[in-house]
């Protein structure tokens, strides 16, 4: 069931209505059943996997908690993590690993019958596996006590607003909220609707519309060149942001209506002046997960510079692989690792240079800051080419042909040809550009929480703004063949 479908809206209205009419115990059961149903609408049989992951982590968290010796605790944890990540490997990485080994051995002249399994990638497997694994690690570290109620733990793993694409919630934040009896609140309802509206705006108006142009160019990259690539690259940057942060907004809004506070997953990442800052604002729940469970255990930054850079690079390599079983994602992760390392290596010199040139305050400071934001956006967009390209070869082809015909880029004839040959009609392109403009203005002037800002601005601005957004969605959103969320595949 997709968030951007009428079926989901009907489902959510029914669940939310039932939720506030039931006593607390009944509410937990209702949410659990609704969450299972929500997932089973896709492929019913794969619910078995979630039930299994739930059981394994519930069981091991208790056994680990009760274990007397540190060695036994550690062994149990390793065993539990092997099951979690073993399943993830089988469903997500097996064919990728088999193909890669086959290619490497083939390069050395060693050929064999390649094992290939027709495995369905269960929707959201990386999200719920990471959430469950983090919980067990937290119990092992003694940060939390294991949950006594199996039902509440099951709901923690399957809570439908964030089940298939996050945010990857931490047990400390979410579990305690399930014990709280949430009263119906008009404040929560209005805030939830406002957050959801922004999510639908990003998804239905921007992401789904421009996805057609992006797919047209990226799926036929050898038929295009020049400005087509440049525009497709920029459009994909907005597509992925709007798709994923749109999902997070809808998830957060739904949860808010029910009385739950999910963590913020995106905080205007394209306004970041550095790649380091970008990762503090992009997919925050995953970034912090990798920080807490990979980067810091590897030694973090409390070690030699070389080891720190190694830790950073490994963390981003793994993060790339988390996104998908393909070399394009690995390279994307590696690129960000390199950007961060280079950023760290040059930070002091850049700051000194800025100080000498007086670019660190006043008007010039602002210009310098804006330039940094643009460069960061450019680097993130360029890296996203690897994220979206069908193959590594396609990505290199795009980079080697992106400046083709650059002298003609601003001639009316060439612009007209590009705008009328990107798979969507020119009016749709115009609508998308306006919508992206609205989004950028919202992020520039709306602050971290635009709904809070508008609430402070007064009744009329709030009504006018959300009326405009609602009307934009209803009259220009994509409702035919609405697309799945990109991050579902992860």
């Amino acid at each position, binding site marked *: 069931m997709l968030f951007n*479908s*009428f*079926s989901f809206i*009907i489902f959510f209205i029914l669940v939310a209505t039932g939720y506030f009419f039931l006593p*607390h115990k009944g509410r937990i059961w209702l949410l659990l059943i609704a969450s299972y149903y929500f997932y089973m609408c896709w492929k019913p049989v794969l619910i078995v996997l979630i039930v299994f992951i739930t059981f394994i982590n519930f069981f091991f968290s208790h056994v680990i908690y009760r274990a007397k010796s540190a060695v036994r605790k550690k062994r149990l944890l390793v065993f539990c993590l092997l099951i979690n990540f073993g399943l993830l490997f089988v469903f997500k990485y097996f064919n990728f690993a088999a193909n890669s080994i086959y290619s490497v051995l083939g390069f050395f002249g060693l050929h064999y019958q390649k094992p290939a399994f027709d495995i369905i990638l269960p929707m959201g497997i990386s999200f719920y596996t990471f959430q469950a694994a983090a919980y067990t690690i937290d119990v092992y570290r003694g940060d939390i006590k294991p949950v006594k109620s199996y039902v509440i733990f099951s709901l923690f793993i399957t809570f439908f607003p964030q089940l298939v694409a996050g945010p990857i919630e931490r047990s400390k934040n979410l579990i305690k909220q399930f*014990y*709280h*009896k*949430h*009263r119906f*609140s*008009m*404040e929560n*309802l*209005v805030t939830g*609707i406002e957050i959801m509206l922004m999510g639908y705006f990003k998804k239905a108006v921007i992401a789904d519309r421009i996805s057609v142009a992006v797919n*047209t160019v990226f*799926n*036929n990259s050898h*038929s*295009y060149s020049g400005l087509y690539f440049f525009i497709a690259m920029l459009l994909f940057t907005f597509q992925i942001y709007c798709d994923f942060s749109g999902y997070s907004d809808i998830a957060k809004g739904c949860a808010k209506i029910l009385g739950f506070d999910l963590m913020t997953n995106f905080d205007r990442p394209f306004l970041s002046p550095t790649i380091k800052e970008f990762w503090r604002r992009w997919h925050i729940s995953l970034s912090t997960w990798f920080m807490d469970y990979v980067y810091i255990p590897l030694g973090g930054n409390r070690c030699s510079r070389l080891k720190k850079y190694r830790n950073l690079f490994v963390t981003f390599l793994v993060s790339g692989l988390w996104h998908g079983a393909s070399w394009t994602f690995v390279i994307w992760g590696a690129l960000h690792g390199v950007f961060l390392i280079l950023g760290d290596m040059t930070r002091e010199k850049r700051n000194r240079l800025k100080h000498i040139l007086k670019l660190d305050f006043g008007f010039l400071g602002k210009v310098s800051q804006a330039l940094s934001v643009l460069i960061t956006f450019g680097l993130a967009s360029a890296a996203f080419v690897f994220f979206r390209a069908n193959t590594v070869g396609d990505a290199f082809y795009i980079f080697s042909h992106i400046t083709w015909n650059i002298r003609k880029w601003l001639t*009316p*004839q060439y612009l*007209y*040809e590009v705008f*009328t*040959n990107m*798979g969507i*009609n*020119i*009016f*749709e392109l*115009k*609508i998308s550009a306006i919508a992206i403009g609205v989004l950028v203005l919202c992020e520039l002037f709306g602050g971290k929480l635009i709904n809070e800002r508008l609430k402070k601005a007064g*009744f009329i601005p*709030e*009504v*006018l703004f*959300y*009326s405009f957004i*609602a*009307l934009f969605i*209803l*009259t*220009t959103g994509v*409702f*035919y*063949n609405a697309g799945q969320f990109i991050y579902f595949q992860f």
Partner: protein
Amino acid sequence: MRDSSYTSSSENKSAKKRALIIICIAAVVIPLFLGIGVIYKKAAEKNTVNAFTKQRFEDFYALKDNSLDMVFVGSSHCYCTFDPALIEKYTGLSSFQMGTPLQHPDTTYFELKEILKTQKPKYVVMDVYWDVLDDNFELKQADSFFEVLKDKSIKKQYIKEVFPLSDKVKYSLWPIRFQQDYFAYAASAMQKGLQAKYGVKEKAGQVQQGEERYSDRGYVYSNQTMLESEYDSTNQFKNFDAKKWTMAKSQKKYMEKIVSLCQSQNISLIFVTAPVANVSLGYIKNYGVINKAVSEFAEKNNVPYLDFNMENRNGELFSNDNFRDDAHLNHSGVEIADKYFARWLKNNGIN
């Protein structure tokens, strides 16, 4: 368990104020939404494909009762493949073309019910294009079909039985239902404006020469040839692998209903898969999976089946020049197809 179910007068006041926000947003959005729906609907009336369907049904309703020997039903592949004038020339049968864009078997079933009210054809030729045998409900195709139906009870029954819940909602909301029509209309106007202002023109190879027009007895004539880009970048079949293709249960059910309906009326049903361009066929991987599934269904139900793509798999019948786009024949191709079809009917003892 903690319970935060306390209230205070200031909270009540705040709650009322928040509720008022929702009411005000609705008060602003609803009238504007309805107004925009009217604008979108007007653009839809100018859509030429809808105009072809409208004309087709008007011509059909003007026919004398029981004047047809053969009726063609199915998707655009159908009305771009069978020309009743040529069929009459090659077989001597009077026929009519009732294909509509993206017509799925569920639509075909209801259309056939409407046809059989006034006509008793000996043959019904049903186009079986794999893309309409999926479970993706296409509101556009349904809409363009039943808006021209005379019998409103069939329309009601069709909406009730075929429309998924979400599409019932979309259908009732004009700005959603007619959005695509309006966007296409606005794009066309925008392009014309830019051409006039800057003297720009379509990219070489992007302008189709010739014409496409509603001809006669439901047939849509075209002397256009495929755009250059459809040989490669914009070919819709590029990367299409039929390995896992299956006929959707819902559409299979309606195909069975069509078989039963024809049997009950003593009508010979014939399945035909119209050809896609040679270059397109080259892109499709595992086409045999589709052919096998449809052939088995046809055999099980004792329906003769002609798959033009199998007949043309080595390019024996058509060349790419016989197509108006990557999936539809132009008139030069129609002449070859209809002649071949007439011979096939004869060779199989059907006519």
